[in-house]
């Protein structure tokens, strides 16, 4: 018997045990305060979403077109490499997003961690939160509200790099010429979200 045959039993896949161990690790890491970034995936009408949270709150929402692996690597580099699949911390965020897509919810009530945005971009995000459900604002108007009427392009960048799309509604910012403008989740997703909110 070759040593490969001798150890064949050891190499049988045991997905059930691994899944159980990963769940246990996430729970124990959270209890011990070393789960710096927890994440989960959520199916939605605009594709699978990645949701990530620190101990402070929701820190990242990423569309599939933004590449979830890249988003996780960015979280590891910018916040901490202690990143684990740990759905429990995202239960509330997932429920509120489900409700939003089912048109049972028009505003989010979640602790947010805005550390991935700073300076002017962060102040744009703060103003974005004031654009109500079912309404839109232009990039130009948002630049003026954020205190820098000339910074229309910078507002566009702030929207494109919004770490918390959907929850911070950058999809409600459109071009002043009536065109819909770009969106981190793709223009199709932006159309779908505006249509969802206008049916109210």
């Amino acid at each position, binding site marked *: 018997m070759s040593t490969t045959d*001798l150890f064949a039993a*050891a190499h049988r896949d045991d997905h059930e045990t*691994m899944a159980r161990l990963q769940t*246990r690790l996430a729970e124990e890491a959270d209890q011990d305060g070393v789960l710096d970034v927890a994440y989960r995936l959520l199916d939605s009408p605009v594709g699978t979403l990645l949701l990530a949270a620190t101990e402070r709150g929701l820190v990242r929402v990423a569309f599939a077109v933004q590449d979830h692996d890249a988003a996780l690597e960015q979280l*590891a580099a910018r916040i901490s*490499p202690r990143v684990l699949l740990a759905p429990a911390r995202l239960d509330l965020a997932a429920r509120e997003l489900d409700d939003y897509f089912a048109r049972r919810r028009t505003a989010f009530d979640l602790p947010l961690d805005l550390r991935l945005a700073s300076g002017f971009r962060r102040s744009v995000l703060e103003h974005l939160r004031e654009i109500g459900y079912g309404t839109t604002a232009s990039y130009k108007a948002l630049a003026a509200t954020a205190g820098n009427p000339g910074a229309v392009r910078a507002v566009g960048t702030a929207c494109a790099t919004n770490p918390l799309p959907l929850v911070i509604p950058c999809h409600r910012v459109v071009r002043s010429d009536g065109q819909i403008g770009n969106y981190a989740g793709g223009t199709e997703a932006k159309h779908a979200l505006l249509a969802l909110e206008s049916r109210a």
Partner: protein
Amino acid sequence: MAVAGREPFEQVVRRHGPTVLRVCRAVVGPDVAEDAWSETFLSALRAYPDLPAGSNVEAWLVTIAHRKALDQVRAAGRRATPTDKLPDRIGADDPERHTDLWSALGELPDKQRQSVAYHHLVGLPYEEVAVLLGGTAAAARRAAADGIKTLRRTYLPAGPDDRTDPR
């Protein structure tokens, strides 16, 4: 996006979790293997941000698992099974040969069991096995060879369904 630094720990768990589980089962036995695995990865997660870039992550994990295994064995008290007499008790055609790999491994002396696990289940070279166990690479190679020799005599893999390759 170009990102410097360490990959998310989740990737480490996925890539190396099954290997570390094999090591734990082999070294501390299947009953406490899951506790040893959990302690290993929790401890690794804690230290992960300080792991120097370019480190061999698998060897690092196995080192932690080895220490946790020693803790487990210490906590459980000395293993009761004397192994020296096995060759006399179990002949090549003895119906009582082990059909379970983990119990067969469990009867090997510590050094042999660890050398077999780290070299044959993880694939660490004997130089690295020697660093973990103390002693020389030659001694680790000898211990693994002795372990394999005993396993061939005491372990009979269960039915043909369980074998991956024809013999």
